[in-house]
């Protein structure tokens, strides 16, 4: 019994896992929220001076095994910043750096007004105050550079995650600043998988309802063209797909030729705006109408199959459209529910797009083949509709068991003209 109950709850557990696991997996740091809260507490706590976090001023020892950071060329601050970040990511007290032709300092550092320092200078986690002269490049990381009156830096100056304040000092080279990426990230829109699902579901439902309303309108006011196009889809599926494919390729050249032709006739130039609008409307009607015809054909096939199995259903175009549209949107619903799953989500989206495109191409091709539902040549209608009376259908079963039981025993093959049908 308990096993049964566990099994009954399995889908719920799976759902929880599916919703929570990706949220954890996608978080940059699982402790982000806690860290934010701790940072805020630190900010409002009395007696917490941010300056207190500054290290005691000291020289950074160098050595043969210490990482080397060259400050001779500061024109690539991003790579230089990476090198410094990597170098300082060592436990406190073990920091070692080698600056070719220069030195590194940890904490605040100043050059006095009577001092001249030769070589490049790197100041980490402190303010670099220059009153005197520096003959080399000056770089600060996590600290400001202040060039006081009378100060001269014969080289370039770069502040990484800090500011350069020119308070009367002179720099013969370039003055650059660059902020750290974390401090400047744009506010991201936080979206949990559930909100993502709801958002996608709302969009999918909206499109579904729009197409459903358009389809019902088409059934109401243009049932005959819809049925002809739908029959064309069923009877000439491959042909409709090929025509649809060619149609997509030729849409733009046809439009171009039309416009150029009108321009060449000079008088036709006036018609161009109308032609553009009519062409666009026809194209939209072809694509949307074709898609609805595909849905109609799918719905009709499914409904008839269910009726053949003995289910009592009302076969009408509204049902066909509803069932067919549900089938068309099935891949999108799957993507809506599981689109957030890494990799699989992208695959589902690709599959949904591919299926929709294939069916839309078939519908577009059927719309072209049937001239918008006006031509029955490819609709598989061998008998004029006026001949399809109840008596004819009752007396002339075309397929299936009743046909097999006919006295002559011959069952016409699909798509062939019935031997006793009108010619």
């Amino acid at each position, binding site marked *: 019994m308990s096993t049964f109950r566990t099994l*009954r*709850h399995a889908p*719920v*557990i799976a*759902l*929880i896992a599916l*919703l*929570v696991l*990706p*949220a*954890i997996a*996608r*978080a*940059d740091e699982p402790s982000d*929220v806690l860290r934010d809260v701790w940072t805020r507490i630190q900010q409002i706590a009395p007696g917490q001076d941010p300056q207190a976090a500054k290290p005691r001023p000291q020289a950074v020892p160098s050595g043969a095994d210490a990482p080397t950071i060259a400050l001779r060329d500061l*024109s690539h*601050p*991003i790579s230089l910043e990476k090198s410094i970040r990597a170098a300082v990511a060592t436990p406190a007290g073990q920091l070692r750096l080698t600056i070719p032709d220069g030195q590194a300092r940890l904490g605040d550092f100043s050059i006095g007004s009577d001092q001249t320092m030769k070589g490049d200078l790197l100041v980490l986690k402190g303010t670099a105050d220059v009153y005197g002269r520096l003959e080399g490049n000056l770089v600060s990381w996590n600290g400001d550079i202040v060039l006081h009156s009378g100060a001269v830096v014969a080289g370039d100056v770069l502040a990484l995650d800090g500011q*350069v304040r020119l308070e009367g000092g*002179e*720099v*013969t*080279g*370039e*003055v*650059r*600043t*660059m*902020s*750290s*990426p974390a401090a*400047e*990230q*744009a*506010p*991201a*829109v*936080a*979206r*949990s*998988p*559930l909100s*993502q699902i709801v958002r996608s579901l709302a969009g999918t439902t909206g499109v579904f309802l729009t197409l459903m309303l358009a389809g019902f309108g088409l059934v109401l006011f243009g049932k005959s063209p819809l049925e002809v196009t739908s029959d064309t889809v069923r009877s000439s599926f491959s042909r409709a797909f090929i025509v649809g494919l060619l149609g997509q390729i030729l849409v733009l050249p046809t439009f171009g030729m039309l416009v150029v032709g009108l*321009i060449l006739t000079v008088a036709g*130039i006036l018609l161009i705006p109308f032609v553009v609008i009519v062409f666009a409307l026809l194209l939209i009607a072809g694509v949307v109408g074709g898609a609805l015809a595909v849905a109609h054909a799918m719905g009709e096939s499914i409904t008839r199959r269910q009726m053949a199995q003995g289910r009592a259903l009302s076969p009408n175009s509204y049902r066909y459209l509803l069932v067919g549209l549900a089938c068309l949107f099935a891949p999108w619903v799957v993507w809506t529910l599981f689109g*957030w799953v890494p990799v699989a989500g992208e695959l589902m989206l690709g599959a949904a797009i591919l299926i929709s495109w294939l069916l839309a191409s078939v519908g577009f091709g059927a719309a072209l083949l049937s001239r918008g539902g006006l031509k029955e040549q490819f609709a598989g209608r061998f008998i004029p509709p006026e001949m399809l009376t109840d008596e004819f259908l009752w007396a002339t079963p075309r397929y299936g068991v009743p046909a097999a039981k006919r006295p002559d025993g011959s069952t016409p093959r699909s798509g062939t003209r019935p031997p006793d049908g009108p010619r």
Partner: protein
Amino acid sequence: MIRPLGIAVLVALASTATAAHAQTLREYSSTRQDHGESRLATTIQYTGGTLELMPAPAGILYALRLTYDADRVAPVARFDAGTPRLTLGTEALRQSGGVRVSHRGTPPAATIGLGTRADLDLDIELGAAEANLELGGIRISRLSLQTGASKTVVRFSEANPIRCSEAELSAGAVELLVVGLGYSRCGEVDFTGGVGKVTLDFGGRWSGPIHLDANMAMGELVLRVPRQAGVKLELDKFLASFAPAGLVRSADGRTWMSGGFAGAGQQLVVEVETAFGGVTVEWIE
């Protein structure tokens, strides 16, 4: 069954992990003090975002301040004192997926100041940018402006201290407004346009006759000319409209002139080739 489902929904709602991929915005600045440079070949290249260009404060040769998406572009600030040549702006990173035009967060932005003591041979190349370029007071010996898909406003609010040999303006699919071309002191103005609306305003103090060679494919070209200026316009159009605004057509049928062109103190000679669209002349009182 309902209770566990409710728990599942609550847990999912409580999980607020960020799923959206944020752009990595960074700030970058680059400044150089003026050390007596007299000439500078300057190129400004900006891929996307908003750009403000203006004269720099005294004592500054150039100043660049950028807010940029570090995943897509890299800042550029190259100065070669030997040539001397300067390049400022951004360049697209390889395999970055192109330049993002629309931004949900803070949009990329650049502010560039150019010194007013050195003579500049100025090239400006804009991508999908919205640019506001104030060039008044900058010493421009030659100007080249190439804009892609952008909205660009160029202003000469003050006179160029030196003569400018030519201004080459090239626009793709844009809305381009150039105000105060009289202040630019450029004798030759070449304009090549693709699609869009382009307004060339010749207001300001002229230092000599101006020759404009305009080639516009599709779109609207508006020429705004001071009322006292004499205008001679040669028009080669195909399926394009032209509003002469008081210009008189000559016998050859292709040239239009304002009254008293020969004796006008400010002369503007315009050669326009256009296919589709329209050319309009407006007078500035």
